[in-house]
């Protein structure tokens, strides 16, 4: 066991809200299935022709191709970053597929009835709520049926191609654009041209640049001024094609005074070939607008030896571009063999606010290096970071966070709370905070704790009849309470189950 943190060890007290539901769904890795849908691959490897092919398959205009090519040329001059506390075999970028689409999608279906039934079956396994399943399945009258609970619009990304978008009419009525990014490139070029790459520039980092060259698809959201998006927006990602690099690109724009809550979740089938994933999410938030972005990520983490898990290198960034813009990132990271991910906030506008709530669980041989960056550029900006890292088995879990107060960001505040929980004595938790304060009126607070799952707590639970695995799940869910509460209701439940699933086999 190794612990690296500057602070004294103490167990934190939790918050006093009732748990939404108890932990269920114990079993083997739940989403480890395979869907036999024929794939249409581009050849292995990456070169200008592959970039051209991807652009052509998406029927893109010339300017988009040029953008991709510029990124590709840039990428060729870059080297993979090695500063993260991650250890994985060398990735041969020429040995990856960069494009795959379900064959039945080569011609887009005219209606959802034509969607491959196997695909619909995968929605079911993913636990997409009945209402959306019905809509996705194209059942007549489903739109009008009363939704149980809040409405969620689903833009399902199956490998590389968006296959169905729901609630389109209702969103259109509100003026919200929610579609695949490839559609946005064709239908809303002025918005895409204006904002794509404006938060995460083409040359930002090795993985983001690669994504810029070869991204296959992803989601696009535009919420017009003064509009509150009438429903939660949700995208379910799955990686399905063997050895296929996944390069999703998401662009969200909240115009002045707009509000939107976006949910992203994903699972992956069992595999024994490591899979590369390099997504980019860009969020632009204008004056008085607010965006909530929630992720529950449970990609296949690999087996007990770490074989076959997903390599996940993600660049997520929100730009609070104008005054009083607000962003809230909430993530539950339980999957992947390797996680490299730092959802960040650029607090440019005066009085803008950034929040980051994170649960990162690493079990067995998983390695996670994740955290956030809060870049305070504007006056009176606020940020809050709550990170809960859980390590079990032989896993390594690193929190890496930057809080930067620039000279002009006077009277700004950051509060960081970073708690690590260790299960067993072969895992590691590392806390790496970087703090830069370049003005005298701003204040940064950092608190960190590291604790072990307490045997007395487990015994207390067991003495009341709760078995050991459920006891661990209960205690860990308690440890994560603050972050789980930040999630939308429907995600909070799933996240709690996920916590239990991902810790299976960590005790006993």
């Amino acid at each position, binding site marked *: 066991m190794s612990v690296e943190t500057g602070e004294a060890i103490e*167990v*934190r*007290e*939790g*918050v*006093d*809200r*009732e*748990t939404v539901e*108890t*932990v269920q769904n114990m079993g083997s890795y739940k989403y480890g299935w395979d869907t036999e849908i024929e794939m249409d691959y581009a050849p292995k490897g990456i070169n200008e022709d592959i970039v051209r092919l991807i652009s052509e398959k998406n029927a893109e205009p010339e300017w988009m191709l040029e953008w991709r090519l510029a990124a590709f040329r840039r990428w060729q001059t870059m080297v993979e970053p090695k500063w993260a506390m991650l250890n994985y075999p060398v990735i041969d970028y020429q040995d990856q597929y960069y494009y795959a689409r379900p064959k039945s999608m080569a011609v887009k279906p005219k209606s959802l009835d034509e969607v491959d039934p196997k695909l619909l079956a995968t929605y079911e396994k993913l636990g997409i709520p009945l209402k959306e399943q019905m809509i996705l399945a194209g059942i007549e009258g489903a739109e009008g049926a009363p939704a149980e609970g809040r409405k969620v619009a689903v833009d399902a990304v199956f490998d590389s191609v968006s296959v169905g978008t729901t609630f389109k009419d209702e969103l259109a009525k509100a003026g919200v654009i929610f579609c695949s990014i490839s559609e946005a490139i064709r239908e809303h070029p002025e918005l895409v041209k204006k904002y794509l790459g404006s938060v995460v520039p083409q040359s930002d980092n090795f993985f983001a640049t690669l994504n810029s060259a070869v991204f296959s698809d992803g989601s696009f959201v535009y919420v017009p001024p003064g509009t509150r998006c009438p429903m939660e927006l949700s995208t379910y990602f799955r990686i399905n094609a063997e050895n296929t690099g996944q390069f999703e690109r998401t662009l969200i724009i909240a115009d002045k005074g707009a509000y939107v809550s976006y949910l992203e979740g994903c699972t992956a089938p069992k595999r024994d070939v490591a899979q590369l994933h390099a997504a980019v999410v860009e969020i632009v938030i204008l004056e008085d607008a607010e965006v909530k972005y929630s992720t529950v990520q449970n990609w296949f983490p690999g087996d007990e030896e770490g074989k076959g898990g997903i390599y996940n290198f993600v660049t997520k960034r929100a730009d609070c571009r104008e005054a009083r813009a607000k962003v809230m990132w909430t993530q539950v990271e339980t999957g992947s063999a390797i996680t490299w991910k730092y959802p960040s906030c650029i607090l440019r506008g005066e009085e803008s606010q950034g929040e980051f709530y994170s649960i990162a669980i690493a079990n067995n041989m998983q390695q996670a290096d994740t955290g956030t960056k809060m870049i305070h550029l504007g006056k009176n900006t606020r940020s809050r970071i709550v990170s809960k890292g859980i390590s079990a088995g032989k896993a390594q879990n690193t929190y890496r966070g930057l809080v930067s107060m620039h000279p002009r960001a006077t009277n700004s505040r950051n509060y960081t709370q970073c708690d690590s929980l260790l299960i067993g004595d072969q895992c590691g938790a590392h806390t790496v905070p970087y703090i830069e304060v370049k003005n005298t009126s701003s204040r940064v607070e950092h608190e960190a704790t590291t604790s072990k799952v*307490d*045997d*007395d*707590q487990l*015994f*207390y*639970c*067991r*003495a*009341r*009849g*709760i*078995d*050991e695995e*459920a006891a661990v799940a*209960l*205690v860990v*869910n*308690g*440890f*994560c*309470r*603050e972050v789980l509460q930040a999630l939308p209701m429907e995600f909070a439940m799933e996240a709690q189950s996920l916590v239990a699933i991902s810790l299976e086999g960590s005790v006993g």
Partner: protein
Amino acid sequence: MLEIKNLHVKLEDEDKQILNGVDLTVPAGEVHAIMGPNGSGKSTLSYVLSGRDGYQVTEGEASLDGHDLLDMEPEERASAGLFLAFQYPVEIPGVGNLTFLRTALNAQRKARGEEELSSAEFLKLVREKAKTLKIDGEMLKRPVNVGFSGGEKKRNEILQMAMLEPRMCILDETDSGLDVDAMRLVADGVNALRSPERSFLVITHYQRLLDHIKPDVVHIMSAGRIVKTGGPELALEVERNGYGDLLAEVG
């Protein structure tokens, strides 16, 4: 009901013997009290019976309704009807008291092949029981034992006992740290549960609790053994004279 024969227990990682041949039988429907000096092994006995790690049984046996307790996991013992009200109830940050209770109750019901309680049924039951123990809604929502006063923790243990309806209840110094009124509440809670099918083993240092919960039998424990067994008058004797004479008498 509970039968302990010649139980010898040492610490797992140390060469330290704590229980040196405990013999104790609690028949169904009876209330037995255990008294004894600090460090005589009372809590250790209750922990070993409920299956806590860190102890090694070197000799002897313990059974509940004829089932070998020592062979079961702690959660199996609980589902079999054993309950320990902890001397030091444990705090579980972030886990709501209600969630904890419901998880425990349904886990036990499931283990026994009974139907799980619905939210509504559960809430109704818990509110009813909490009320008699003067545990308010706010305390039910707070994380398990976190920030509870000493007395609140003990009342919370009794609430758990009332909800789980165990057949064999062990109370380890549940009276310690209680004010006079709280002591009454706890005693009333215990008395309400008394029945011909349910037994109690009440570990205490004071006659006060036994004034309210009238024991059928009182045991004196010393140096890891039951050294004397008698009626309620034994507790009064301890109260009056301490353990000195008693222990000298048994050598």
